[in-house]
């Protein structure tokens, strides 16, 4: 790439940073990490509405959902976001897994089909974002391909990424393990379910996406 073109790109980036009033933020992560639980909490805290349904069965969200104009106020500054709750990302989807949750074979096959479409939709959304909140289940191993792929894509696009180490209400959770896996990105340990540390998350959101 030519120097002039690079300079112009950098300039555009700086311009974007200062001019943008509204940032489009995707909530990403593997199935069941708590993305919708978090999206619901953010949207409820700042608008009073809800976002989508939550379930212990993976791939509950199979269509991306956008909530426009969520204004978060924090330490005197305010940031307005479009929040996109995305379907959980995966490299494999086996309908038998849903049957073990008590769904019928037909329901399970349909859920699997919709889940594959949901993953594609989530991937496509990556092209239209200004930042990502990557939600990880802090009781699980952080070195997964889904996490590596989301982080790699945001780094390649030079877009901000915030890691939400979720489910810290559970005794086996370890946000420290996530931090040592991806030390180059800001991390906030939270419980989306119980609300622990959510204010710290709002501060980080205002700092990184404002």
């Amino acid at each position, binding site marked *: 790439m030519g120097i002039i073109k690079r300079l112009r790109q950098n300039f555009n980036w700086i311009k974007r940073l200062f001019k943008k009033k509204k940032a489009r933020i995707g909530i990403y992560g593997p199935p069941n990490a708590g993305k919708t639980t978090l999206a619901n909490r953010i949207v409820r805290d700042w608008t009073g509405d809800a976002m989508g349904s939550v379930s212990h069965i993976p791939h509950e969200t199979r269509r991306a959902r956008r909530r426009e104009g969520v204004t978060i106020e924090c330490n005197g500054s305010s940031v307005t976001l479009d929040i996109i709750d995305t379907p959980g990302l995966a490299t*494999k*989807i086996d309908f038998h897994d849903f049957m073990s949750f008590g769904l019928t074979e037909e329901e399970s096959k349909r859920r699997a089909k919709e889940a594959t479409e949901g*993953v594609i939709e989530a991937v496509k959304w990556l092209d239209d974002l200004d930042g990502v909140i990557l939600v990880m289940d802090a009781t699980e191993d952080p070195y997964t391909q889904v996490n590596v792929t989301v982080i*790699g*894509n945001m780094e390649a696009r030079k877009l901000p990424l915030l890691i939400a180490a979720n489910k810290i209400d559970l005794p086996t959770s370890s946000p420290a393990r996530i931090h040592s*896996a991806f030390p180059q990105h800001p991390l906030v340990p939270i419980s989306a379910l119980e609300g622990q540390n959510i204010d710290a998350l709002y501060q980080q959101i205002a700092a990184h996406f404002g």
Partner: protein
Amino acid sequence: MMKGIQMDLISEDKLDGMTSMEKVRLILDEVRNGKILILEKGLTPNEQTKLIELTMTEIAPDDFSGIEIESYPVKHDNNILGKLFGKNTVKTRLTVIGPADQLKTIKKDRDLISALVSAP
């Protein structure tokens, strides 16, 4: 003949000579034939998402349930000259890919991937 699972180790040179779509197509075709692939140099983040998308379109009940893929996070080259002149400063790394029903990651950390391979 010895029974077993075929494993292909694909060199960095071969991968460098292929386009993104060729790589993704090759991987999926081989994995669907039951092979385990080890890439000397991994996929770029963009190729990783392409592979996920194509995998999703091919998943079908009782035929193909997807892939298992493990790699290390990309390495960033902090060479200032490289950055200044827009050279590629991201280095992808060793990657293992196989059919989801035959390859299972047991443990993965910063510098070790441990996996279990089983017959179909």
